[in-house]
């Protein structure tokens, strides 16, 4: 029984990890721009592309989930991204490097979308471009439920449901060993408490920071793993998005700064044992340090996860770069290998982010010794 389940599980993973192979098809003879495909994947999007196929009339048909667009531009405007993709034809342009490109417009709404950025259209209902190929039109504030925002909500909900199931097994009597999913969750919670919070912040003060550390750890982890699933509702590169890592790193910084004690600030503005003339140099260095630490957190998570996505997609892209299915004999095992490695990285990066956050907080609340 267990064996069968295990086999099914392994094959599901193999299939899921090799799915990127099927999601990028192209017309006969037309080379696939692998770089473009990869960049498109790791960036945010206003629609969730599932697959593209060629219909009987040799036209490309896209299957995607259209996500809602929310703009703040003299009031809140909400509409489906479908209105960009299906109402008017794409406008073809030639970019600065001489390559063909296109953007979508909806003249009725007065907005255009170019490289997933939404711009206000000009009088002629078009976008203006500068010499480098960037659109110069004004941008409304974009609060759309993009692919990443959707994943954000979905993962939060999924995490809550999973953890809720775990908590239920405690209801009867807290004295029994954990059962069901709690058997998996509890050691991780205890690990975060003992090896991350207690080890770095200290026995006395760790309790206050546990909600942040636990939430950050589980949230990053589940999103790292969701990002490895190539099809909806996974596959968004949320934890590899700079906005996401920036926000989480900002939380760490705010917590560090606001829980910093006298001792912490003294070390920044009047480092003990440093001569006064040297402080002129030391204070700016220490102040930069306050920002550099969360900055490192932000870049580390972003770079690790994005790199993982790029490697898997690049390995898959080998098939299309060389235009031969025979390359799949190399590319599929390789991307499977990296995929499994990424499962480890998913945990590792969540751990490192939480660990370093705890370390920074621990430094800020440390007593004088």
């Amino acid at each position, binding site marked *: 029984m267990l064996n069968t389940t295990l086999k099914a599980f392994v094959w599901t993973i193999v299939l899921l990890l090799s799915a990127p192979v099927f999601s990028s098809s192209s017309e006969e003879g037309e080379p696939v721009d692998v770089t473009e495909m990869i960049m498109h994947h790791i960036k945010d999007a206003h629609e969730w592309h599932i697959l593209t196929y060629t219909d009987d009339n040799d036209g490309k048909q896209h299957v995607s989930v259209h996500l809602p667009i929310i703009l703040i531009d003299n009031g809140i405007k909400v509409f489906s991204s479908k209105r960009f993709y299906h109402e008017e034809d794409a406008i073809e342009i030639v970019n600065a490097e001489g390559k063909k490109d296109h953007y979508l417009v909806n003249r009725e709404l007065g907005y255009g979308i170019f490289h997933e*950025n939404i711009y206000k259209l000009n009088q002629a209902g078009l976008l203006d471009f500068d010499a480098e190929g960037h659109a110069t039109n004004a941008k409304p504030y974009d609060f759309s439920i993009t692919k990443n925002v959707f994943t954000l909500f979905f993962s939060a909900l999924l995490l809550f449901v999973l953890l809720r199931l775990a908590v239920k097994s405690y209801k009867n009597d807290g004295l029994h060993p954990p059962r069901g999913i709690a058997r998996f969750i509890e050691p991780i919670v205890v690990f975060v408490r003992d090896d991350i919070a207690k080890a770095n912040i200290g026995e006395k003060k760790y309790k206050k920071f546990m909600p942040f550390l636990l939430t950050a750890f589980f949230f990053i982890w589940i999103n790292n793993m969701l990002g490895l699933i190539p099809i909806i509702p996974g596959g968004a590169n949320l934890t590899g998005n700079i906005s*996401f890592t920036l926000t989480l790193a*900002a939380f760490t910084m705010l917590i560090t700064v606001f829980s910093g004690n006298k001792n912490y600030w003294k070390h920044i503005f009047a480092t003990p044992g440093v001569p006064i003339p040297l402080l002129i140099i030391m204070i700016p260095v220490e102040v930069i340090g306050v920002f550099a630490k969360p900055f490192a957190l932000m870049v580390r998570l972003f770079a690790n996860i994005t790199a993982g996505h790029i490697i898997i997609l690049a390995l898959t892209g080998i098939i299309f770069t060389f235009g031969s299915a025979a390359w799949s004999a190399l590319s599929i095992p390789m991307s499977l290998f990296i995929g499994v490695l990424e499962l480890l990285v998913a945990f590792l990066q969540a751990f490192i982010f939480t660990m370093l956050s705890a370390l920074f907080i621990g430094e800020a609340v440390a007593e004088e010794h």
Partner: protein
Amino acid sequence: MDLITPDLGLVFWTGLTFIILMFILTKFIWKPIMAAVNNREDNIQEALDMAKKTKAEMEKLKTQNANLLKEARIERDEMIKEAKITSDGMIESAKSKSKVEADKIVENARVSIEAEKNAAVAELKNQVATIALEIAEKILREDLSSNEKQKQLAESFAKDINLN
């Protein structure tokens, strides 16, 4: 460049979602789990402490028992020793007493025997003297009953004196 430019919308949604998630999870998940884990750990710790305490107590009791046993044994030994000494003393004293008594008895007996003997010897002497006197008297009476015999005796005496 797009890749490393933070997007306002996503920052906003991430912040909002994370804060809400943190509060919800804290209330519904972390608190119950931490409470259960701490509760269990406290219980285990308590049980361990109790076991340790009981063990220590048992160890103490055991030592106490051993000490008691040892003390009892020492006491017993002492008592036996004392009893032995007492009994030995008693025997010894009885022995010496009886010896003294026996000696006394023997001495007494000896003294009385001596006395008896002396008395008997004295008696015998007296009786012998008496008897000798009586015999001498009888002899004398018989011998000196005639003149002749008196004459003879006087001659024998005179003979003795002459020899001197």
